[in-house]
């Protein structure tokens, strides 16, 4: 069974969870043998061009020491054999069209997303 994970949001709880929860879920399921693909859409395309670790939060005397490492998480997925796609049109909408994608992330035109849906047995839209 092949599942397409559609990540349509970004930065929802990346500060307090120290990762994106669906990227994390996907990595963990991949480790359990899951046959998965990832489609970054909407604000999720920001992850495709992410280069740096997330900023560390400071509140009063509390200081975050382990902020999220989104580039690492994307790289881990690609290295583990999970195809990662980002919708080119969504990148361009957000002024990100001219930026280089992370190694291994494949751009996909919005008009081709339907074909991607057809490649999966199930589509999990988050």
């Amino acid at each position, binding site marked *: 069974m092949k599942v397409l994970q559609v990540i*349509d949001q970004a930065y929802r709880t990346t500060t307090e969870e120290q990762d994106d929860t669906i990227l994390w879920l996907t990595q963990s399921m991949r480790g359990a043998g899951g046959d998965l693909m990832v489609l970054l*859409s*909407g604000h999720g395309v920001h992850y495709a061009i992410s280069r740096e670790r997330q900023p560390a939060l400071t509140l009063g005397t509390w200081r975050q020491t382990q902020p999220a490492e989104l580039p690492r998480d994307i790289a881990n997925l690609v290295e583990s054999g999970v195809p990662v796609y980002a919708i080119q049109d*969504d990148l361009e909408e957000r002024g990100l069209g001219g930026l280089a994608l992370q190694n291994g992330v494949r751009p996909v035109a*919005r*008009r081709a*997303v*339907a074909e991607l*849906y*057809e490649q*999966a*047995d*199930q*589509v999990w*839209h988050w």
Partner: protein
Amino acid sequence: MSHYLFIQSQDPFTETRTHHQFDLIGQLHDAGHQVAVLLVQNGVTPARRGAKSDLFDDLLLWGVTVRADQFALAQREIDHADLKDQIGVADMDLVIDAMLAGHKVIWH
């Protein structure tokens, strides 16, 4: 040919993402797949006769099967007669039947 059921909880009045969601539904429909949409929660709001959303009305124009959740309609005091032509009323069993039939059921 595949069967798709989209559970549409987002509405075009508050969520700009619905624009692309409806486009995708149209693309799958145009590609010859059986595509249905169940409107739930505030997703039912463009279904009311007189509601102004060209994006939503295009779904009907394209011939996509659209149903609206009876519970969400009742909450908003929308009767069947208040709905735009072509929109039927359904309940959660529509989703379960689609899942049991092996259709691709996707939450928007």
